[in-house]
């Protein structure tokens, strides 16, 4: 066998459904392969671990050419909810867990979950706003210490 990856640290910076799932799938997949994994939530990515918000993550329907919906239509009231509902239905058929369930599952795999201090301060949040699986609120320097010796993936 060739080279192997021993450790990954995944930065989650987006707060949309399509911005959050890829990083979660990569983190979960890493653990399934026996690769050590850390997740670092920053900026709008914090919504994925926010107790009150992580059940309400939406697909971006404006400025998302991949959706093949006209921008004026994407901005229509309720459009984001409808598209999110549709996509969640598609994912459920493939047994892809919801974001809250997925985050909990990934924590159960032993992956580390951390929130970015600067973003937490900027949004005036505290550790109580996050799900219990979040181990700590850390600085970028502490993130690099945790990521040392592994690959860093920005999403």
């Amino acid at each position, binding site marked *: *066998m060739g080279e192997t990856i021993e450790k990954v640290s995944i930065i989650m910076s987006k707060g949309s459904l399509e911005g959050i799932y890829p990083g979660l799938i990569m983190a*979960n*997949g890493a653990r*399934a392969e*026996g690769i050590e994994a850390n997740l670092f939530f920053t900026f709008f990515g914090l919504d994925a671990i926010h107790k009150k918000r992580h059940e309400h993550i939406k697909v971006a329907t404006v400025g998302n050419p991949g959706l093949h919906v006209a921008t004026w239509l994407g901005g229509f009231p309720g459009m984001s909810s409808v598209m999110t509902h549709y996509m969640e239905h598609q994912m459920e058929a*493939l047994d*892809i*867990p919801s974001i809250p369930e997925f985050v909990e599952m990934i924590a*159960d795999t*032993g992956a580390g979950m951390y929130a970015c201090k600067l973003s937490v301060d900027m949004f005036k949040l505290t550790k109580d706003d996050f799900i219990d699986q979040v181990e700590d609120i850390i600085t970028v320097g502490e993130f690099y210490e945790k990521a040392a010796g592994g690959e860093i993936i920005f999403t």
Partner: protein
Amino acid sequence: MPTKTVAGTTVDVNEEGFFENPDQWTEDMAPELARDDGIDALTDRHWEVINFMRKEYFEKGTGPTVRVLGKASGVSVKELYELFPKGPAKTAARIAGIPKPHGCI
């Protein structure tokens, strides 16, 4: 095709050590396969997962992923990773003598 001798029997495996032919597997091979994956002793809980892997494989044609194991095997995701730290579905498939499960979740 590479072969490997387990419990005195030669079996067909792929480059990653997964069985090519699950019918070549016998229960007495499991402890040796487990040791190759760093698991010194198989407990009843390990066996529950191993038996579930084989059952699913023969029913569905592919081994279960961690997601399926966590939902249907009776062993939680947390415990699965305690039993098989280097990846539950992957390691248990190798010990259970079935091909590596395909699936991203």
